[in-house]
């Protein structure tokens, strides 16, 4: 910093200043935009902050960890946390299985077929979550939906049973997220030295064996990255659940932490409690992201 008034600018010193000027705008924007809301999040989570305080009718009151103890003692919180973890785990497994299978498929078909598939998949990936949720809702509509018509199940309500609803939402999420896994793993497979897979084939390995014994071990770093990205993605699912189960399903049976936090804050006007859930969410994802960063570093990605 003091180099500025250090007389005539020496070339070497001028160069060390450049990163600062290049990074300053981004930092100046990000720090207040990110740090202040996080500070506010922590603050709200220890306040009694509801509709009355929002409208200014009552003063905000410091209540310490009461929001957290309320949350921890609520059976609903634990059931929602469980549902979130199980739902995300199931989604990660299915997305990974589908994505990996299709990545292998891409290596087997002609170039044109591979191109068409990845085009179609990327369209699904990039489609707004709102569009995806809306279409699938129409497709699975109780009375008018195409699916019920084809299956001859007219009148079957896909969001009535808890598991049915989770499965339907899960199908949409997988539809949105398998393309990322597919293209990433495919890029990984293509980057593998060709001779290795050919050698396995010459040694008489069938596709199944060469996938598990050769491709998977060699792609381990990329698979780890894809798994963690999927965990983070699937933990944050909001739009699909909110839209398709109408804000968390019948009596909140399809709530996940994400939707629960939103519902507490905005539907019940319990902003303090909603923030406490937000803090819990943040800590969980922080832990996952730190694992991710360690993996990246270990796989040699220069950060």
């Amino acid at each position, binding site marked *: 910093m003091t180099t500025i008034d250090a007389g005539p600018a020496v070339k070497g010193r001028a160069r060390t200043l450049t*990163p*600062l000027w*290049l*990074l300053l705008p981004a930092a100046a*924007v*990000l720090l207040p935009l990110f740090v202040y*809301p996080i500070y506010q999040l922590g603050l*709200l989570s220890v306040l009694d*902050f509801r509709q009355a305080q929002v409208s200014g009718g009552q003063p905000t009151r410091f209540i310490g960890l009461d929001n957290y103890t309320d949350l921890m003692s609520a059976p609903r919180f634990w059931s929602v946390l469980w549902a979130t973890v199980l739902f995300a785990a199931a989604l990660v497994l299915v997305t990974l299985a589908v994505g990996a299978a299709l990545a292998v*498929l891409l290596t*087997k*078909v*002609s170039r044109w077929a591979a191109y*068409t*598939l*990845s*085009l179609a*998949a*990327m*369209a*699904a990936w990039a*489609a*707004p*979550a*709102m*569009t*995806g949720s*809306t*279409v*699938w809702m*129409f497709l699975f509509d109780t*009375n008018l939906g*195409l699916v019920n018509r084809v299956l001859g199940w007219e009148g079957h309500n896909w969001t009535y049973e808890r598991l049915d609803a989770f499965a339907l939402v899960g199908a949409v999420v997988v*539809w949105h997220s398998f*393309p990322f896994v597919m*293209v*990433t793993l495919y*890029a990984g497979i293509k980057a593998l030295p060709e001779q290795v897979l*050919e050698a396995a*084939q010459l040694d008489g390995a069938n596709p199944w064996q060469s996938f598990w014994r050769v491709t998977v071990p060699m792609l381990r770093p990329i698979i780890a990255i894809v798994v963690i*990205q999927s965990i*983070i993605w699937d933990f*944050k699912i*909001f*739009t699909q659940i909110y839209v398709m189960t109408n804000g968390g399903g019948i009596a909140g049976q399809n709530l996940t932490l*994400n939707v629960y*936090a*939103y519902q507490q*804050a*905005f539907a019940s006007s319990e*902003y303090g409690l*909603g*923030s406490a859930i*937000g803090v819990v*969410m*943040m800590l969980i*994802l922080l832990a996952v992201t730190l694992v991710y*960063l360690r993996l990246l570093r270990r796989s040699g*990605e220069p*950060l």
Partner: protein
Amino acid sequence: MTAVTHDRTTTGVSKETRAKITWSLLDIVVVVFALVPVLWIASLSFKTPATLSDGNFIPREWTLENYRVIFSTDQFVRALINSIGIALIATAVAVVLGTMAAYAVARLDFPGKGLLVGVSLLIAMFPQVSLVSPLFDIERRLGLFDTWPGLILPYITFALPLAIYTLSAFFKQIPWDLEKAAKMDGATQAQAFRRVIAPLAAPGVFTTAILVFIFCWNDFLFAMSLTSTEQSRTVPVALSFFTGESQFEDPTGAISAAAVVITIPIILFVLFFQRRIVSGLTNGAVKG
């Protein structure tokens, strides 16, 4: 590969062909699975109310009525303008600031570089829902609630780290020595940058802009919690208000048309820049 095929007996070859056919059939099934929902909503949007629920994939009676209806309502047109304006501004700011920061990360050595990329990633992974309550409170106090900046700012918060991360990966692959070579050949710094580096960097910047735009354009959570009127409501949220309102007899057709309109730009991006988008997505994970 060819040597292997030559050694095979005819039955071996036919087995290979059969496998190829199986794989190709699977390929078609997946393409259909991926595309049907998009095509189905497009089909619904062109149907008349009478044929809306006939289950035909191709509309029996084509109509543009649904599009006419949504484009004649302020509710939708205003939301579309909001969506376009907010996403474009947020993307522009994020990409410009992100390019500067990523250039520093890729080109220059400075202490705390690893930390910077780590923090970008941390923010990109951050659960947006956690910030919704505090942002609601902050924006109400600052008068930003239900305004364009009220959405642009949180979008930048998440789009900028994404841009820094994606662009750093792109910029690391640029052969920067070419710049030095150009200068040795007598080009000035500005010429070297404009003629050599800018064309090499442009695809990465462009790809990042698309990714960032898709993120802003598709957002539902912030748009729903930080807006309350047509003044700043974006299309994904306006869409959810189509239901329940008695403005349209049966909102299915109108909703479908609106959903098609917000999906078209996205589909066009994918159609024209599929390879770039994929490389932008996989760059961070796959080196090469």
